[in-house]
C-alpha cells in the first residue's frame, strides 16, 4: 500500500522543521535519547543494496521497506495511524517510506505468526519499515515480531489494532547496531486484552517505544519487558499506556540490565485520562547496574486526570547488588563479578522462562542468541 502523496509531502516538510522531542518537564532534565545521532543518518527511500535476511523461519518478512515474503497475509487499504507532526523522527520515517503493509490476522491461528522487520545498509544510511496489523474481533492471536538491524540506521513502526474482545499475545524482539527508532503502537477495542513480552538488545542508540492505547471499555494490557545493554550501547525504552476507555487495566514490568559502559533507560508512562474512569495502572521497573561504568535511569510517570480511578501506582529501582547481597553471595563462594554474572544470567533466563508457551519456537531462537551474547563475556 503506497503512502498517500499528501502525507509524504507533509512529512518531508516537517522532517526538517519540528524538533525530535519537546522537553517540558523542568529546567534540568536532558534528553534520554541522543537524537543528534540520528542527524547523521541519510534517508535512502529504500534504495540500498544489502544482504537479504533468512526468511525460512518467518511468515512475513519486510526488508529495507520492501515486502519479501508474506504477500498472502496482506490486507486491504487502511488508514495510517501516525502523523508526521508527532515528532521529527516520525516525519523522517514517513518521508523515507514508499510503502506501508497492512496485514490481517483473522481467526484463531494456533501457531505463532512470525513477522520480521529487517534493515541493513551502510552506517549512515537510513532504512524504514512500516506495517499495520489488524487483529479481528474476538480472535486469539500469537504474534512474534522481530526487529533486526544489521548495520545502518533504522526506523520501524508497527501499528496494531486489536479488535473488540480479541486477545493478542505479542512477543517483540529487537536487536540493533546503529541508531534505531522503533515504535509499536497498539490500539485496543472493548474487552480486548494484550499480553506483551518485549526484549530489546543493544545498539549505539536504540529508542524503543511502545504505546498501548486502551481505547475500548474493559481493555487491558499486561506487559513484561527486558532491556539489555552491554558494550557502549545506549538503550532508551519507553512504554506509554493511555487509558481512554472506562474500566481499563494495565500492568507493566520492566527489567533492565546495564553492563560495561552501556546506558540503559526505563521510561514508564501511565496515563489515566478523564474519560478512563475506574481504570487502574501499575508500572514497575528495575534497572540493574552491572558495572562501574554502566548507567541506569528510571522515569516512572503517572498522570491521572480524574479521581474516579481504581488506583495508579509505579515503582522504580536503579541499583546493582547491594553490599549485603554481595556479602551473602561471597559467603557462597562467589566473587562480585561472578555474582553479577549470575544475576544477569538469571534475569535473562528467568524472563525467557516466563514467556507464554505459545512462543516456544521464537523463544528458543532468542534464547540461543542471548545465551551466546552472555556467554561470550
Amino acid at each position, binding site marked *: 500500500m503506497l503512502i498517500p502523496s499528501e502525507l509524504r509531502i507533509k512529512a518531508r516538510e516537517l522532517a526538517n522543521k519540528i524538533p525530535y522531542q*519537546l522537553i*517540558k*518537564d*523542568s*529546567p*534540568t*532534565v536532558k534528553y534520554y535519547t541522543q537524537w543528534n545521532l540520528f542527524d547523521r543518518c541519510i534517508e535512502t527511500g529504500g534504495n540500498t543494496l544489502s544482504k537479504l535476511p533468512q526468511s525460512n523461519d518467518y511468515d512475513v518478512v519486510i526488508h529495507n521497506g520492501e515486502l519479501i515474503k508474506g504477500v498472502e497475509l496482506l490486507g486491504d487499504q487502511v488508514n495510517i495511524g501516525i502523523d508526521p507532526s508527532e515528532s521529527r523522527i516520525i516525519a523522517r520515517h514517513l518521508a523515507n517510506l514508499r510503502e506501508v503493509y497492512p496485514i490481517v490476522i483473522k481467526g484463531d491461528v494456533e501457531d505463532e505468526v512470525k513477522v520480521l522487520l529487517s534493515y541493513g545498509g551502510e552506517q549512515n544510511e537510513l532504512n524504514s519499515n512500516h506495517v499495520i496489523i489488524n487483529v479481528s474481533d474476538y480472535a486469539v492471536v500469537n504474534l512474534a515480531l522481530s526487529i533486526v538491524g544489521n548495520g545502518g540506521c533504522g526506523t520501524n513502526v508497527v501499528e496494531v489494532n486489536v479488535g473488540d474482545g480479541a486477545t493478542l499475545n505479542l512477543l517483540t524482539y529487537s536487536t540493533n547496531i546503529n541508531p534505531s527508532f522503533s515504535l509499536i503502537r497498539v490500539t485496543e477495542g472493548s474487552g480486548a486484552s494484550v499480553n506483551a513480552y518485549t526484549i530489546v538488545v543493544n545498539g549505539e542508540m536504540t529508542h524503543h517505544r511502545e504505546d498501548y492505547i486502551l481505547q475500548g471499555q474493559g481493555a487491558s494490557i499486561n506487559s513484561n519487558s527486558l532491556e539489555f545493554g552491554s558494550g557502549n550501547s545506549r538503550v532508551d525504552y519507553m512504554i506509554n499506556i493511555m487509558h481512554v476507555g472506562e474500566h481499563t487495566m494495565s500492568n507493566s514490568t520492566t527489567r533492565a540490565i546495564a553492563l560495561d559502559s552501556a546506558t540503559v533507560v526505563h521510561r514508564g508512562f501511565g496515563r489515566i485520562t*478523564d474519560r478512563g*474512569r475506574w481504570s487502574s495502572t501499575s508500572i514497575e521497573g528495575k*534497572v540493574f*547496574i*552491572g*558495572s*562501574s*561504568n*554502566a*548507567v*541506569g*535511569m*528510571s*522515569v*516512572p*510517570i*503517572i*498522570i*491521572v*486526570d*480524574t*479521581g*474516579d*480511578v*481504581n*488506583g*495508579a*501506582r*509505579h*515503582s*522504580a*529501582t*536503579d*541499583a*546493582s547488588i*547491594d*553490599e549485603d547481597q554481595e556479602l551473602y553471595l561471597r559467603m557462597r563462594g562467589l566473587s562480585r563479578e561472578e555474582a553479577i554474572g549470575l544475576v544477569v544470567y538469571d534475569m535473562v533466563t528467568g524472563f525467557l522462562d516466563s514467556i507464554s508457551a505459545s512462543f516456544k519456537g521464537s523463544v528458543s531462537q532468542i534464547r540461543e542468541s542471548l545465551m551466546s551474547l552472555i556467554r561470550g563475556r
Partner: protein
Amino acid sequence: MGMRQDLYNLIEDGITPEEVLSKNTPVRRSVEIKGEVTKDVVEELSKIKREPDWMMRLRLRSLELFNKLPTPNWLPNWVLDNINLEDYISYARPDVNRSSNWDEIPPEVRQYYEALNIPEIEARALMGLGAQLDSEIIYINIRKQLAEKGVVVLPMEEAVQKYPDLVKQYFMRVFPPEHKFAALHGALWSGGVFVYVPPGVRIEAPIEGFFLISNAGEGQFEHTLVVADKGSYIHYIEGCSAPRLSKYSFHDGMVEIYAHEGAKVKFTTVQNWSRNVINFNNKRAIAERNAEVEWVEASIGSVASFVYPSTILKGEGAKTEITGITIANGKGHVKENGAKVIHDAPNTSSKVVNKSISANGGTAVYKGVVYVRRGARFVRSHVACDSLVLDGDSKAYTIPHDQVFDDTAVVTHEAYTGRISEDKINYLRTRGLTEEEAKSLIVLGFISDVTEGLPFEYAMVLNRVIMLEFSKYGKVA
C-alpha cells in the same frame, strides 16, 4: 480580641479566611515603584536600600540574565499569560517604623497579625520573629539568648550592610540566576531574613519569618539566607498569608541554605497565600560533609504554585530529607511541588516524601530529580509519592527522574495515586465514625508526616487550615 473572636465565628460557618480578611482596610504606603523593569529601576531600588556596590552589581548582572534567558516552557500557559512583570509594583515601603514591641504597631497592620494568631505563637514557641509587610521588615524581636550566642537574625537588607563579607560569600552563590525567575529575583529582591548560626551553637526552638502581600499588583521577592556554621543546629519556619485580591499577585522568592560540616538545618514553610497568588519560590541548599538539611514544605494556598526544594549533597556523608504536602483545591488550581537531590559525594543519602491532595478540579503535580554522580559511591535514595484525588474532576501528576551514574547506588522510587480507599472508610465506620468523619480523619492522617515535625501551635493551625479547606468533609473534634 474581639476581632479574633468574630473571625473564628465566621470560620466556623465555613467562610474562608481570605474572604474575611478582604474586608480589611488597605495599608497606607509611602514609596511605590511602578513600571518596566529597567536598569534604572534596579539602580534606584539599590540606592533606596543604601546597598554596597557589589550588591548593586549583582542586581544588574541578574537583570541582564533575566533579559537574556528564555521564558520557561514548563509552566502552564495561563500562568505565563498572567505574569506581566512590568505591571507589578516591585517595591513599596509601608508607612510604619521599625518596632520591637507588638503594641507599637499601627492598628490596621496589627489586625492582620492578630487574625493569624501571631502573639500567642511567638510567646510560646519561638525565639525570634521577623515579619514583613509589603517588602519591608517591620517587626523584629531578637531575644537576648540568641544575641549572646552570636546568632545573627536580621532583615536581609540590614545584613547586607552590617555583614557584607559574610553575606557576599553565600548570596546567590547557593542558587545562582540559572533560570529566568531566579534572575528576576536577583534583580529585584527585597526583604527576607538573614540567619547565621556560629559553630557548635544549637538553637532548639524554631525561628520564624513572616510576610504578607496586602495589595493587588504586588510583587514579593523576599530572599532568605540561612548559614549554619560547623556543627550548629537551627530550625527555621516560614509561614505566610494574604487576603483575596482582584488581580493576580506574583511571588518570586528565594531561599538559600548553606550547611557547613556537621551542621543541621531544618527549614519549614507553610504557604497559605490567597487564591489570587501565583507563587514561585527558588529553594536550594548545599550540605557539606556530614551535614543534614531537612526541607518541609506545606503548600496550601495560592492558585498556582511552583516550588521544588533542592539539596546538593556536596560533602561525604551528607543527608537530606524533603517532605512536602501539596493541596490543590479548586478548579484550575495548579500546585506543583517536588524535590531535587544531587548526590555529589560518597555515602550520601536522601529521602523524599511527597503527599498531595487534589479536590474540586484542582491539579497537584510532583516533579523530582535524583541524580547520582559517578564516583559518588554508596548512595542511598528513596522517594515516596502519594496522591489522593478526592473527586472525578481533580488530577494528580507524578513526574520523577532518577539518573544513576554509579553502580554502588541504590535509588528507589514508588508512587501511588488514588481515591480514599473504600476499605479504609468502611473500617472506620465499623468503629463508629460517619463517612465524612472517616474521610477527614484519613486526610489528616495522610498528611501527618508533615504535621508531626511542626511545633504544636503550627500543627494545630495547619490541621485547622486543612480542615477548613475541606470543610465539606465535616469537622473532627
